[in-house]
């Protein structure tokens, strides 16, 4: 059981999401970095698909009246626990009864995932416990956590193993890798040059539906198309010429030309972009993108 003492900026219950409902207009959603949530789950002895919390920029204060086993993965936040014990990322943490965990601001990056032994026991909706905020369902009452909420956890596995996860060594400070978009041919040379040579900044109005970028104007020949299916990572160029990277809760269809698609392997990096961060793009071959396996988190015993 977890009591929410104070809410963070937007704490959402997430699991791997609900693929399979796109024909109804429902995106798959789920954790913005499913591998990070899966790693946190493994650290507490959960099934990798258990529900945990996705925490963004400023975290919540949580009290564990009967204690618990938790793990944090992803961006590091300033954080304290009431026992004063060390609060490491990517490790199994054992909390005493009545202990509180306070996550303040993210020190680097944007999002982290908190797994709780047993998983968060919210009712599944359309096959998933993930919150889908735009339509207000899934997760905890379809919304972000608020002070006073009480979260239950599910049945727990036997025995506690103290484990440590090693984050995959990803690309850093390099441009986001994209493959050419389905409507790349609708852009003129000036538009393509602006997009691929330019540095963009992540706008404040970004969320799980999309990251709004500000920077060099991407001009195009046509601005509206018949509605087409779109995926997270698609970079749309609306009439104002400022790119939008579609996020995990973005619409399943869109009518703006898509200049490029961020490859799946780099979407965990998109999950860590915060307002003001610089973004650049580089094209890679489709076959190369398809060959890139999901980054692997290695889990080992804490000696």
């Amino acid at each position, binding site marked *: 059981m977890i009591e929410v003492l104070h809410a963070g900026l937007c704490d959402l219950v997430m699991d791997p999401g609900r693929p399979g409902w796109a024909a109804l207009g429902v995106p798959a959603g789920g954790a913005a970095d499913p591998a990070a949530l899966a790693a946190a789950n493994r650290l507490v002895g959960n099934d990798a698909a258990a529900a945990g919390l996705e925490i963004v920029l400023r975290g919540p204060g949580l009290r564990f009246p009967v204690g618990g086993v938790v793990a944090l993965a992803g961006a590091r936040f300033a954080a304290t626990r009431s026992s004063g014990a060390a609060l490491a990322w990517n490790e199994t943490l054992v909390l005493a009864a009545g202990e509180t965990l306070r996550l303040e601001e993210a020190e680097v990056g944007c999002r982290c995932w908190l797994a709780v032994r047993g998983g968060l026991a919210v009712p599944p909706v359309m096959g998933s416990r993930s919150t*889908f905020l735009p339509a207000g*369902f899934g997760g905890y009452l379809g919304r972000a956590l608020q002070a006073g909420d009480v979260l239950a956890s599910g049945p727990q596995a036997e025995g506690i193993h103290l484990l440590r996860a090693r984050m995959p060594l990803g690309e850093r400070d390099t441009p986001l890798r994209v493959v050419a978009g389905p409507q790349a041919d609708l852009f003129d040379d000036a538009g393509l040059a602006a997009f691929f040579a330019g540095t963009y900044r992540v706008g404040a109005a970004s969320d799980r539906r999309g990251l709004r970028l500000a920077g060099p104007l991407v001009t195009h020949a046509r601005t509206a198309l018949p509605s*087409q299916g779109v995926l997270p990572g*698609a970079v749309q160029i609306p009439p104002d010429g400022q790119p939008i990277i579609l996020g995990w809760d973005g619409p*399943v269809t869109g009518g703006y030309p898509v200049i490029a698609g961020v490859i*799946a392997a780099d979407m965990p990096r998109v999950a860590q972009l915060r307002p003001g961060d610089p973004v650049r793009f580089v094209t890679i071959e489709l076959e190369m993108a398809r060959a890139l396996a999901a980054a692997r988190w290695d889990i080992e015993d804490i000696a």
Partner: protein
Amino acid sequence: MGKYTRGQSHVHPTWRWVSERGLRVATGDATLAYYAALVSQNFAEIDDIILADESLLLVLQRGAAVSADLRAVLMAPLLGTQAAIGKLHEIVVEYGGAAGPDLPLMADLAGMSLAAYINSHTAADYAVAFLGFQPGFPYLRGLPRALHAQRRASPRLRVAAGSVAIGGGYTGIYPACGPGGWQIIGRTRSVLFDPQRDAPALLMPGDRVRFVSL
């Protein structure tokens, strides 16, 4: 890559990759038939299928290859194949007034009286082409030509749930309250989307719709 040619159902569809997991299939007016064929065969490598304007986007599992069986379906002409005719729904609408603030403008643009406009909107047979924008939001094909209208130049920040609207050549219904750029002509009390129902979306691709004036 070539384009699917309308009216030539012996031409097999063309497809292309969209990012590394998406396979866009140009299906022309056989979109629902292809969707039905793909769903019935339950391909293991397909995670999800997005229906849209004359195309499908197959979302493959990460790293999955296109199987020979899937390739065969995509290569096959759906000669004479019709998607099963869906359910017929009657949607009761309160036209105009506070429920449909754009009705006077829309009637004006169509050169009709309010009554004639409502008549025209209720007389047509509509088919659900696809759902998108919001969960359960139907893009309904069959809007009479005279009723086609551009979206609003600047979207409303708040459109009421159940709002019946015009967007280009489509009429649609907003399942939930939220921002929206279509022209609002009325409102229904029908619940278009409820994630707790066994069938969360009231209207499914291929279903038919008649509007009835309250």
